[in-house]
């Protein structure tokens, strides 16, 4: 049993004591990345790295203990509520299958995380009138939210919000489409209008011209 408390800048290993419970009465100690709080309220490390203590601005009483790691990439997996960016791989009359390429701002290329948008999760209004083929096409880039962890095969995603939906798509003429409304995109070359569940852009009007 080692009861020594690590100091800032020390190399810590899983289980290293970062802050004992008694100290939390003076300043409110919290666990950041790579750390956790055990049953007695002590802060311990959960990965190998260097101890960093940060104080949120304006709250000098709060102290966040985190461990800086040297791993090549942060371990990021989608959780309920995270915004994900996906590629559409398959569209059926009931659902669309997608490959998750980004979780928040972290890219997870080749992660193999898959998502599914069911017909009832495409938009928040007139959900009984949704036509999957008029909402997504294979190859579209879609911004969605994780609503549940779904099955072992795929995450359950939703695009039922105005800033969720297709953010980039190629038309039948193999040209990038330009969004013109919340449910239409236009090919700049042929002028053909294709239907999509479009995510809200800064301005449809300027893009229309």
């Amino acid at each position, binding site marked *: *049993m*080692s009861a020594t408390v690590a100091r800032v*800048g020390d*190399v810590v*290993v*899983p*289980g*290293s*004591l970062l802050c004992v419970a008694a100290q939390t009465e003076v300043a409110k100690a919290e666990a950041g990345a*790579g750390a*956790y709080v*055990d049953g007695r309220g002590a802060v*311990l490390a*959960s*990965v*190998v*790295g*260097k101890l960093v203590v940060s104080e949120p601005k304006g709250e000098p009483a709060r102290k966040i203990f985190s461990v*800086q*790691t*040297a*791993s*090549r990439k942060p*371990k990021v*997996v*989608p*959780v309920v509520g995270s915004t994900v960016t996906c590629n559409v791989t398959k569209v059926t009359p009931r659902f669309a299958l997608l490959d998750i390429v980004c979780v928040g701002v972290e890219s997870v290329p080749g*992660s*193999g*995380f*898959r998502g599914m948008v069911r017909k009832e999760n495409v938009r928040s209004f007139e959900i009984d009138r949704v036509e999957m083929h008029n909402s997504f096409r294979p190859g579209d880039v879609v911004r969605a939210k994780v609503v549940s*962890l*779904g099955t*072992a*095969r795929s*995450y359950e995603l939703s695009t039922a919000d105005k800033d969720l939906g297709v953010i980039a798509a190629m038309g039948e003429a193999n040209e990038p489409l330009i969004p013109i409304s919340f449910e239409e995109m236009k090919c700049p070359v042929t002028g053909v209008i294709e239907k999509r569940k479009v995510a809200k852009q800064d301005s449809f009007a300027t893009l229309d011209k």
Partner: protein
Amino acid sequence: MEFVQLSGLRGDGRRGNEVRKLGCHFGAVVDCDGSAMLDQGLTKVLACVHGPREVAQRSARPGDRRSLAVANFVQDTFTQVIQTELFKGSQIDITIHILQADGGVLAACVNATTAALIHAGVPMVDFVTCCNVGYLDHTALLDLNHVEELAGGPELSLTLLPKSGKVLTMRMASSSVRVTEKLLQQLLDEAQAGCQLIHKVLDSKVRELVAVAVKKRHGADPDAEIADAPAYQ
């Protein structure tokens, strides 16, 4: 056969309360998120960690009973230590290759997995170390080798969280000797002491690993930031 000589030394020259030389090489395999080659005496084990990654249906389980028992033991142990609540809906794969078996395979597998998980940066509550202990010639012997295992005396393998002193899992077998409560208590104490010894060595190996990673990136300045340093290799 005599396992403990009059001098108090065992067949390979150790005393009863000594563990074998422990070596650990991180990053032995490139094509995974973390790996460690661990040798405990002549027992040599390679552990690779993939993930956390998406859930794949296939999960290769060993076919024979002995390997399956090791796999179940490792799984039971690490599901308690890894902070799985951070990675809901994903899976972590641990692959273990036993390259040389000279006793204490189970312990070596657990210790190698700990090292590989640390190398992969998977958050764990604590280190986990495992050590086995036997009882031959009226002496408790730490870290049995193959010859001592074959003697058929009681053998106890125990995994410990060395910092909190919690016992996670243990397995005991005795084919020829009846184990009394008093002996069991002695074996438990010995095994925990062995786990602490192994923890000391493994801890220093991990710290070496970090020191190397920092030095590689920042030359001689040990206080430099290591936030975006490359993999420890």
